């Protein structure tokens, strides 16, 4: 009979490691999340990205004047920042590899995916990492409403969902520029309701989306302007979203705070978030009683994510629905490195070509290009999306060849079976592993 520690580490974390001891009870599991709230020294945050962008604006402008030396300075600067971005990716891997329970880092991935943002340029790639530090980590054990507010008003989100292009049709800015095609962009408003809070099946109308879009006007970011709100492009007047009225006075961020607080505690949001957590951690088609329990806790606690984490950690469904989820490629690579006894130090010390060859290219070929989900709904959950022939072949190819470049000496296959799966190994696997030939080979 597998222990709680084994089950929880595999289902809520990234699996076992010979180096680490996972908590033996639900309270310990939930408490372990605190380790992921901590933001390390030198972590990328909005302030730093803002400063980089500020300097980058000057360097970029100088580089475009035609002076080759200025251009070279701009290129070198962006190359240096590219190195910092790569280090943030290694850091994400390293923290997951070192997290004793893995639960906290899994939650970081879950919430960063719930509030999906992507970058593009090196500055905005860095901003997506700042987003994790600024909007996700601080709230892993906090209130959903606070995480939602931090996420929706973060520059990474404001840009990703085009909020910075949304201008109130009757705002001061639109009235001053009658010749320019300034107007509403509904992208953030719609996803805020449909993906981030109530869910697509909930009871809301296009009118709610349009009204919310009007309410959100004013949210905008520029590295050389402080804050995230520009009254000059806010639509004047009050707006009605889901029956409640917001604003009407002098436009300010407080109106937006108000609507986010209400969306975050809506009963439909409780059901949406509860189901999404159950799908991510337990089964693609999760047992309804678990969803109901999670939703009830969300409602009763006013969206206390620490209480949600504890409810998940206590769920008997973790055991009952064992092997109902397929690890996503990031989870697969982390789990593999953990089982081989590799530590975060080793991951952080990897040289750029090795990061590409052993982690990022394989992850892409497995279907999960780093930081590039196709849309604001993030990575797919269902097993079928990941168990493609190519995806599976890449996992097998990786497992055959990458470990010998990561761990020296390689563990005996039978020992590895023990350390990776403990008492949870299936009969078929326990039968097959001792019969395997030892044949490590070079990663292409």
């Amino acid at each position, binding site marked *: 009979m597998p222990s709680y520690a084994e089950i929880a580490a595999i289902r809520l974390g990234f699996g076992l490691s010979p180096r680490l001891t996972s908590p033996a009870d639900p309270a310990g599991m939930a408490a372990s999340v605190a380790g992921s709230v901590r933001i390390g020294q030198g972590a990328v945050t909005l302030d730093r990205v803002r400063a980089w962008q500020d300097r980058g604006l000057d360097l970029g402008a100088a580089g475009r004047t035609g002076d*080759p030396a200025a251009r*070279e300075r701009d290129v070198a600067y962006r190359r240096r920042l590219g190195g910092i971005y790569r280090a943030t990716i290694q850091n994400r891997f390293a923290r997951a590899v070192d997290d004793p329970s893995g639960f906290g880092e899994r939650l970081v991935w879950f919430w960063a995916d719930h509030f999906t943002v992507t970058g593009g340029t090196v500055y905005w790639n860095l901003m997506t990492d700042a987003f994790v530090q600024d909007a996700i980590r601080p709230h892993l054990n906090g209130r959903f409403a606070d995480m939602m507010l931090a996420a929706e008003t973060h520059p990474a989100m404001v840009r990703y969902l085009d909020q910075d292009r949304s201008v109130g049709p009757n705002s001061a800015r639109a009235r001053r520029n009658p010749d320019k095609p300034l107007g509403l962009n509904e992208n953030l408003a719609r996803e805020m309701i449909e993906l981030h809070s109530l869910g697509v099946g909930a009871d809301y109308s296009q009118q709610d989306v349009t009204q919310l879009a009007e309410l959100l006007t004013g949210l905008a970011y520029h590295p050389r302007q402080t804050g995230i709100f520009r009254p000059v492009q806010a639509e004047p007047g009050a707006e009605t979203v889901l029956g409640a009225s917001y604003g009407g006075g002098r436009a300010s961020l407080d109106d937006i705070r108000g609507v986010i607080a209400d969306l975050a505690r809506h009963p439909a949001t409780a059901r949406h978030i509860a189901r999404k957590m159950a799908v991510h951690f337990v089964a693609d088609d999760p047992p309804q009683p678990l969803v109901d329990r999670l939703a009830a806790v969300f409602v009763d606690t006013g969206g206390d994510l620490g209480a949600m984490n504890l409810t998940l950690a206590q769920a008997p469904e973790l055991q009952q629905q064992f092997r109902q989820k397929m690890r996503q490629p990031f989870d697969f690579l982390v789990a593999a490195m953990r089982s081989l006894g590799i530590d975060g130090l080793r991951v952080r010390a990897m040289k750029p070509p090795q990061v590409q060859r052993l982690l990022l290219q394989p992850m*892409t*070929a497995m279907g999960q290009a780093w930081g590039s989900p196709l849309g604001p709904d993030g990575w797919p959950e269902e097993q079928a999306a990941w168990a493609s*022939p190519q995806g599976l072949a890449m996992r*097998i*190819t990786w497992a055959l060849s990458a470990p010998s470049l990561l761990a020296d000496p390689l563990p005996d296959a039978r020992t590895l079976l023990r350390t990776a799966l403990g008492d949870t190994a299936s009969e078929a696997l326990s039968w*097959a592993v001792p019969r395997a030939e030892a044949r490590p080979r070079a990663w292409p």
Partner: protein
Amino acid sequence: MLSRRLFLKSTALIGCSAAAHPLLSSATFAAAPGDNRLVVIILRGAMDGLDAFQPYGDRALGGLRRTLSLGPDHGATDLDGFFALHPALSELLPLWQAGQLTFAPAVSTPYRDKRSHFDGQNMLEAGTGTDLDLDAQQDGWLNRLLQAMPGQASETAYSVGVSQMRILQGQAPAKSWTPKAEMDLSPQAQQLLTRIYHDDPLFRDASTQAMEIVASLSPDLATGKPGQDHLEIARFAADRLNGQTRIASFSIGGWDTHAGQAGSLPRMLGRLADTILTLKADLGANWDRTTVMAMTEFGRTVRENGSAGTDHGTGGTLLVAGGAVRGGRAMGDWPGLAEGDLYDGRDLMPLRDIRAYAAWAMHAKFGVSRATLEGSVFPGLDMGSDPGMTA
């Protein structure tokens, strides 16, 4: 089926079970998708078309560029008295002479003004206009073509390589594979794996398919040499196209030549030429029924910049090759490089939507109706007149 939102709606209408396997009914296998083949290569990073096919007959060119696009006096091959082929593409000259190579020198997607690689490639692969939100466009035009093609099966289309190909993403099943997934299993390992996966239909089917793909490959497909990925990909694509596959898509990155272009672009053009010639060699007789289109997200500035490179522009070049092509001439008009001819005073003026060429190729080769092409594959596109690109 264009945006994530419309997709959600349409799945709701079809119902889940039908949506999960929309093309797996036995009837769909009855008709073969025909014998013609289409290869779409995405050149990521924006290829400088003015250097690949140099309009040396335009008198303004010399004043715009100092070290680039130097024309026939500096090693390029004259094609028609106006355009000259970059020396690094000279291996393709026999194709031009045989009428199997053509290009459209001034095309673009509807994307304008922001000149971001990211958005530009998304729009090129989504194949839509500017009225839809880019991030919401999750399916690509090759997938929508599949949905409109008669008699297609899951083998019909392949995306090849590790790069994510949005162009083939969508509801219609398509295969993807990278020659990097060698999955070099011993017979014993294969047996053990089969046994482990036996009771899990998902893993069993996926691994069976993967083993079939690997087993069907020519043994020397993977070179294992650095810098040869494009050849591995071309060989694999040809291998599939010689079988059931009719559409293949992959990308070649590295075209963003902001500095020292005279050093970096020849390497990329050489790769492109080698890719096309590898396809031709490996396709054998099937080359005669093949159309290869190499597309890039936008062109580059007409002026050389201060670092002997070029920056992001607008109008760019489409390259088309294949035995099914009516080549040996440039397609479409030339906008001119004089000050007043340029887009925004800096870029080549695009004269035609790049999607029109793709649409005419699909119309000719897969018999897809103009209404479908203008309505769902490239919504809102006006195909215009037939450029007579294919034989």
